[in-house]
Every structure is written in structure tokens, then in C-alpha cells.
């Protein structure tokens, strides 16, 4: 009887391993990663992200970081000593300004990517800029993700007037162009003393609506699932139903969007820095570097090109990975 039937089933092995049935949707991290491994562009994106994260971590644990980002000349020379051949180093403080990259006619391998208008090594600044960008991308996206998830999940789960109030508020926020919103936010909160942290919070808040709307739409369907009804019928508290049952099952598209939005926030904060509302000199930030560089566009175009490439590659990495993640998490698109 009962036992016999289940025995034959066990002989087949766990159904999840079969996977070819077509109707058995596979889940889990291992499966997702396996799928991404099979996808060349997503794999490329993953490698870019790993490199970017590694670079930012390495610079993060370097105790010299704070001194280096302050930007005194001797500190940059110290960094030069680490990154290039010490024997080529000019005396401290005497580095040539706006040196072209090494492969150009007047370049030197002491500064593989040249120097900036103050004679600081460009490669070093680019590398330190990675840390700012990763911090900006992750923190701002997290703010949007957490805020949006809470608002959207509550809104979608409870419905009614709660939904109306929250979603109208969110839509009001959504109607304002993010750049304008962030600039206003920065100016107000910082008292006209902009800093990257305000930009990060501003962008994070500006992206709350995107996440809130996405997760709400998912929650609307997930809350009708029988397991949510079953949890209610078993006397689980609303808060626990949201936390344990509704949100985890609504989260996949949000995760994809977050990955894509790390790239977007990096771009937007770089734009803010370019406008002077983000990172302030002497912080090594790609957007800030671009802002300075555009004044020397004719004299030394390389100063604009390098941070541009860094931004491009990083964002591309996150986008490719995000696309791959989407394909992996959505079984309908093969």
C-alpha cells in the first residue's frame, strides 16, 4: 500500500536531480550558478564583477587608503612605488603633470596610464575609484532594495487603503526624475556641502519606487498561493507570513533588478560627481575624475578615456550578470 508506492519513488532518486521532466522547476543557488556557468556572457559579467570586487577589497584593507585618498603628493608617490618600478620614480612631489599613458610618445612606464593635472598616478586613482564605485553601487542599491521591498510587500500583501496610500506616495516619488530628486536631496540635507554619502542615499531613495512596484506586483500573485493561505490557516502572524513566505517567493525578479541597478547607480552617482554633487576632490572617484578631465579634453584626452572605460566595463559586468541571472531564474525563457 502506501509504503510500497513511496519506495518505488525513492528508487528514482530525488526528483530534483532528474530535472528533464520539464515540469519540475529546479530551484536553489547551486542550480542557478550552474546555469550561469553555461552562459558565456553571464560568466564574463561574473568575472568582471569578481575582479572589480577583488580590487575594491584589496584597496579597502590597505591601511594607507585614507592617506592616499586625501591626495597629498608624497602619498601618491608611495602608491606609485607599489604599483610600478621604483627605479623609474621621479623624486617625491616632482611627478610630471598630465603625463600621457606609457604607450604614448612621451609616456613612462612609471605611470602606465599617465598622471592627472596634479601629477597623481592615474592608474592608482582609477583603482581607488573602484572602491568608491562598488560602495556607491551596493549601498545605494541596498537602500532602494530594502526600502522598496518593505514598502512594496506591505502594500501588495495588505491591499486596500494601505496599498493606496503607499503606492500613491511611491508613484509621486517615481514621477520626479531621479537626478533632480537627488540634487535637491543633496542640497537640502547636506546644507550645500555635497558629499558622496548624500548622493548615495539620494539615489537609493530615488530607486525605492522601482523596487517597490516590482515586488508589489509579485506579492499580489504570491499572496494568493495556497501556502500563504495555509500559513494563515495555521495561525502564523502576518509579519511572519510576509517575512517567511511572501517575500522569499517574490524575490527572484527583485534580485535580478538589483544586480542591474548596481550598474545603474554607479553610472548615476558618477554623473552626480561629474556635476559636482557627488564625490568631492580629492577623493578618487571615476565621476569626479571625469569632471576634472573634461577641462583637459584637448590637452590630454586620455584623462577622460580611462575613467570612462572603467565605468563602462563595470556597468557592463553587472548588466551581463544580471541578464544571465534573469535567464537562470526564469524557467520560461530558455
Amino acid at each position, binding site marked *: *500500500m502506501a509504503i510500497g*508506492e513511496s519506495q518505488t519513488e525513492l528508487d528514482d532518486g530525488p526528483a530534483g536531480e532528474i530535472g528533464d521532466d520539464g515540469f519540475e522547476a*529546479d530551484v536553489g543557488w547551486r542550480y542557478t550558478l550552474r546555469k550561469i556557468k553555461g552562459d558565456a556572457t553571464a560568466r564574463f559579467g561574473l568575472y568582471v564583477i569578481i575582479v572589480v570586487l577583488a580590487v575594491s577589497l584589496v584597496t579597502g584593507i590597505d591601511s594607507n587608503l585614507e592617506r592616499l585618498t586625501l591626495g597629498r603628493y608624497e602619498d601618491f608617490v608611495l602608491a606609485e612605488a607599489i604599483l610600478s618600478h621604483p627605479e623609474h620614480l621621479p623624486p617625491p612631489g616632482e611627478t610630471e603633470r598630465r603625463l600621457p599613458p606609457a604607450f604614448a610618445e612621451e609616456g613612462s612606464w612609471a605611470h602606465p596610464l599617465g598622471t592627472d593635472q596634479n601629477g597623481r598616478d592615474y592608474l592608482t586613482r582609477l583603482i581607488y575609484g573602484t572602491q568608491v564605485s562598488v560602495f556607491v553601487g551596493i549601498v545605494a542599491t541596498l537602500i532602494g532594495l530594502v526600502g522598496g521591498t518593505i514598502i512594496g510587500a506591505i502594500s501588495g500583501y495588505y491591499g486596500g487603503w494601505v496599498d493606496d496610500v503607499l503606492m500613491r506616495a511611491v508613484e509621486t516619488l517615481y514621477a520626479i526624475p531621479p537626478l533632480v530628486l537627488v540634487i535637491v536631496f543633496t542640497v537640502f540635507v547636506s546644507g550645500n556641502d555635497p558629499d558622496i554619502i548624500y548622493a548615495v542615499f539620494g539615489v537609493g531613495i530615488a530607486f525605492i519606487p522601482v523596487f517597490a512596484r516590482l515586488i508589489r506586483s509579485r506579492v499580489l500573485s504570491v499572496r494568493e*498561493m495556497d501556502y500563504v493561505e*495555509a500559513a494563515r*490557516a495555521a*495561525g502564523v502572524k502576518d509579519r511572519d507570513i510576509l517575512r*517567511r513566505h511572501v517575500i522569499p517567493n517574490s524575490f527572484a525578479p527583485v534580485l535580478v533588478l538589483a544586480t542591474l541597478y548596481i550598474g545603474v547607480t554607479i553610472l548615476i552617482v558618477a554623473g552626480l560627481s561629474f556635476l559636482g554633487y557627488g564625490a568631492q576632490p580629492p577623493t578618487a572617484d571615476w565621476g569626479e575624475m571625469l569632471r576634472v578631465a573634461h577641462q583637459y579634453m584637448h590637452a590630454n584626452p586620455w584623462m577622460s578615456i580611462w575613467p570612462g572605460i572603467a565605468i563602462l566595463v563595470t556597468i557592463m559586468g553587472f548588466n551581463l550578470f544580471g541578464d544571465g541571472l534573469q535567464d537562470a531564474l526564469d524557467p520560461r525563457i530558455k
Partner: protein
Amino acid sequence: MTDTLLEVTDLKTHFFTERGVVRAVDGISFDVRPGEIVGLVGESGAGKSVATTSIMRLVDDPGQIVSGEIEFAGSTIVGFDEADGELVPREEMLSNADMRRQIRGNEIAIIFQDPMESLNPVYSVGAQVREFIELNRDLSGGEATEEAIEMLRRVGIPEAEDRYDEYPHQFSGGMRQRVLIAMALGCRPRLIIADEPTTALDVTVEGQILELVRDLQAEFDTSFVWVTHDMGVVAELCDRVNVMYLGKIVEQGPIDDIFYNTKHPYTEALLSSIPRPDRTVAELDPIEGTMPSARNPPRGCRFHPRCPDAREACTRIDPEFYDVSDGAGVQYSACIKHADVGYWDSEPFDGQRLEQPP
């Protein structure tokens, strides 16, 4: 009243939609005694599921319990008092928080229809059984885990310790249904509402599950309300049956009386539409037409547009619940054949058979 566990009296649950009031449950009364399996049978849309969610007080907007009483083992789940011609919830009615803490899961558990949808795909099966047990019984985390494994074993899941950590997608439909039963029974409720739990399963598995439920029922002495559209399941499992049609119970009685001494044309029609090996499809006797909308139910007896025995009187008289067991008070039928209200004198009902009244 002491021998009644659940008593539902004249329960009405209506849905207030923009296109009118849907009378999904329109005055049903039934009771469940300890250790009994009571069937709630009817076609899709008869209001069976709404009736069960009303018992749990989990009716979603725009649905509302508008009147009636539900008593469960001395506590009032639903009750109204009349004040100034309006019905106001009675004071001793359990608050929402009390419902959650005392009744849901603890005293009454539900097993849902679709085993594929009733388990959360992101948690292991064992964790879900444990969550419900932990919530509804005074057990520490470790004890709850052991109890969860024990319950999985009790419902016939082999190698329960290993399968505890597996995910729902690694279980077959029948196995998942067993898990749902383990989840419900693990909370040690006094009443389990089973909402068409075997409908999604194939017949062999259904048989096993029914057998399992019968065994466990005897072992744990839990009462069941078994919601189904399948008279076959009812015959196999239930002690007493309530037949529902369009928001009302049309016949109520012990299983044998319902099957062998059928007193309502609808029950008769249901019974003769069961597929049987000795009859081909052509010989089946399906009920004509479809169930009318509960938004605008037919006047008189709600079944008259489809009833083979309908007479003119049926269109006028709203039938009450008539005792058809010679005053023994065990079997009731809501058909005016069994009352002295002029059925036998009136003309047979014909014409506009399936039309909706204006």
C-alpha cells in the same frame, strides 16, 4: 450541546462585488461531533470552500460573514446580536488575535486542495512541518524537529529523517499531500477541514490517502470536515454528509441514508452522474445545465431550473429543511416533495427550464 464540536447555524457569507451581492453561502447549518468525518459535497461553485474559510474567519474582501453563528467547543467564532434591527458582532466573539492564537492551527487545521501549491517552494518540507508544530504546540525547537520527523513517518513517508531536508519539488503529489496531512495533524487540532485534498491526485494515490486518513483519524480521534465534489470519496470516508447546492445545504444525513434512501432530487442526480465501470459515458446521467450564478439565484427552490422533478410550485416556494427520517431528526431534505405545501397538486414545470428568472 456537549456532544457537538462544531456547530454552524444559519451561516451566511456574501461577497459584495461591484456587480452585485454574491450569496456564496446563504444560510447553512450543520454540526460536527467529536471523532466524526462529516462530508460537505457539491459541484464547483456551490460555496463549499467559502463555508470552510468562514469557519476559520479567513474570508477575504469583498466577502463578509453577514449573519449566522459558528460555535466551536464552547467558544464563539461567529455570533451576532440584533440591535435596532441591525446585526452587530456579539461580545463573546473571539477577536482576530484570539482566532489566530487559539483556533487556527491549534484547534482547527486546514488541508488544502492542491498539494503542488500548498507547500512553500523555498523551504525544506521538514522546516515547514516544524514551523506549524512550533507555532501551535509548546515544544522547543529540537522537540519540534523530532515531532516533525515523527509526523512525517506517521503519514507514511519513508526515510523521514533524510526527506526532512528535501524541498517540495523533490516530492510527488501524493507525498506532498501526506506532508500536508502531517502539517495539519502535527498541530494536534480537534478538527481538520480537508478542502478537496484528493482532487488533484490520481485515483490510486487517492485511495492510499483516504486509507491513511481513516487510520490516522482513528488513532488521533480528530474530527474532519471533508469537502469534496466526489460522492465516491464521501461513500468511502464519511459518517455523515451535507449536500450543498448554490450556497445552501439541500440534504443532510447519515451516509447510508443519503446513498440508499435519497430524499433530494439533486443528491439523486449527483449519485447517478458518478462514472461507474458498468456504465458507458452515454449511459451516464449528468445533471443538465450548469449551476446558476449565486449573484442572482433562481426564485423558489434554487435547483428547480435543472431539477427533473420540478413542478410549478417549486418556482414559488423556498423550501425549508424537512425532517425525512420519520421524526428521528437524523436526515433532512430541502425539497417540498416532503412537505405538505402543494407540490403534488401543482402542474409539472416545463418550458424555460434553464432560463434565469428576471
